[in-house]
């Protein structure tokens, strides 16, 4: 990061390419859908990486995702609020779980935190699965309201059904989150978090308030993840416990971040933009059933051969 102006040219060019390609290729609905989801998962990975900056490896981020999803779905189903309001408000459920998480797991580090987070996901899942009167239990909810039609000075954008508009929405989401992460990683807070990761005792000795900084990272990460959950269910129009509370959703941000590289702000997005389309467009046609297994292979190979992630390649030269 010693040459900041150089290091942002690559990501900026990539962002421009992502914004321009749908204008060049017409009738690419499959690609729009896949790249849109890749952007959503990129946001998820960035959110995960915010918490991981402090050295925490979470295996349970699906809990935040699912709570954000259910929070928004329930608000829009029971009170018929617009999704513009329910997504940010529903994500507060994820934030609340983040506060509980922080109270319960404050003393846990490393492997133990990973194990605890793995188990933590079960709690909201089982509760929502059994609270039939509120959530319709394992039946889930279908026919949720889609994203609204925005009107900007006579120009209508149908976010509910126009795939191109959805793609741009998700692209904007991931770019905004990436810029946010870039600012955070360059700030004193970002360095404080990384200092905690490298050596907690030394970090406390130079005056970093470990618990407070880590809690802020977790809450930010939880809220962003929950927002993604809200977008996800309203894009799909349905929600059920296994759809949003599953190991796969906890695994993806971890895999994208580690594959892309956790040291650079765009690493997690890079991982998502490479791996998700690869899985959906290449491996799904080849192996219709077990195509997600490719993520398992990727994460194993990454840890063995590029433990710093692929974005660290440039630095190795």
């Amino acid at each position: 990061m010693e040459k900041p102006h150089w290091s942002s040219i690559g990501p900026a060019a990539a962002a421009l390419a992502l914004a321009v390609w749908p204008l060049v290729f017409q009738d690419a609905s499959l690609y729009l859908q896949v790249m849109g989801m890749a952007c959503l998962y990129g946001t998820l990975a960035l959110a995960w990486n915010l918490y991981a900056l402090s050295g925490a490896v979470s295996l349970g981020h699906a809990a935040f995702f699912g709570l954000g999803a259910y929070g928004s779905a329930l608000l829009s189903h029971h009170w018929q609020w617009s999704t513009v309001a329910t997504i940010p408000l529903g994500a507060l459920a994820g934030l609340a779980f983040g506060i509980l998480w922080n109270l319960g797991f404050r003393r846990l580090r490393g492997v133990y935190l990973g194990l605890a987070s793995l188990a933590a996901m079960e709690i909201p899942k089982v509760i929502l699965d059994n609270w039939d009167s509120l959530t319709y239990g394992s039946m889930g909810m279908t026919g949720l309201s889609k994203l609204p039609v925005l009107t900007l000075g006579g120009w209508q954008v149908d976010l509910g059904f126009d795939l191109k508009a959805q793609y741009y929405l998700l692209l904007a989401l991931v770019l905004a989150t990436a810029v946010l992460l870039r600012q955070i990683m360059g700030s004193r807070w970002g360095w404080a978090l990384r200092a905690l990761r490298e050596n907690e005792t030394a970090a406390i000795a130079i005056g970093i308030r470990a618990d407070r900084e880590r809690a802020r990272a977790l809450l930010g990460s939880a809220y962003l993840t929950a927002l993604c959950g809200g977008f996800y269910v309203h894009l799909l129009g349905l929600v059920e416990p296994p759809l949003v509370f599953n190991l796969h959703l906890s695994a993806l941000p971890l895999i994208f971040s580690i594959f892309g590289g956790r040291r650079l702000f765009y690493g997690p997005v890079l991982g998502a933009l490479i791996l998700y389309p690869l899985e959906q467009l290449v491996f799904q046609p080849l192996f219709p059933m077990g195509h997600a297994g490719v993520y398992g292979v990727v994460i194993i190979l990454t840890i063995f051969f590029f433990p710093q992630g692929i974005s660290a390649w440039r630095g190795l030269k």
Partner: protein
Amino acid sequence: MSSNAWPWAYIFTTGFSLGSFYALVALGFSLIFGIARAFNLAHGELIVLSGYLAFALWKFCQVPFLLTLPLCLAVMALAALPLCLLLRRLGEPYGLNTLVVTFGLALLLQNLMLVLFSADYRLIRPELPGLTLPGLEVAVSGSQILLVLLSLLATGAVHLLLHRTFLGKALRATIQDPEAAQVAGININRMAFIAFGLGGMLIGLAGPLYGQNMYLFPTAGVDATLIAIILTIFAGVGRIRTLLVGGWVLGLVESAAILAMGSRWRELVAAALLLALLAWRPEGIAARKQE
């Protein structure tokens, strides 16, 4: 099972048989963790894989169920050894790296099993004679008897190995302090290899038993992994009697919870116990220094 008149006897029999099995499930995880220092999040998936192997042998090759046990035992022991060699090459932080790699392995195995065996629920149903406990009127199925017998036999055998043989002494020394063990001339890499071999055998044994008592499906392993982690944290590493007690307690609590609230809350029991243990006794799992 028509046991509404005797819920307590029912809870005790299911709790006891489940609990013995849980101890068997946890034992392999705990040996691998204690001796090789590797967190194996794919533990449950390997058990389910072994269960599917037994299912395939039993269903498609007409192998008698009892014969699938030694076959699975041998296959899984051989499968665990390459895993040991693979994990040995990981760098620091070793614990976290093994966690992430085996998490990836778990994902891979889940999808592999989905391809090979589809998402249908499978159950191995061998014809084993059951019996009714005298005086209690609780029917005990043959598979439950087999479950308890083999689980206790395997845990007992590992206990004897650890406490009555020279190899066991070396293994226990490695659990207590790998560096001191090395100074004393113990090859800790070989001990890790043996731990994976033993763990693989226990996994191989647990698989067919799992398949004849609980439904097999590709993601069933997560539960088994959670149980292994819970009991290992509860008991500490290499303490088999505590592991058995913990298994029985967990089995009893679970079967009581199922009876009281319905089977859908069962997953919550295991998760809540794990969180409570981590909150109150996070040092339990690392209890290698002293007690």
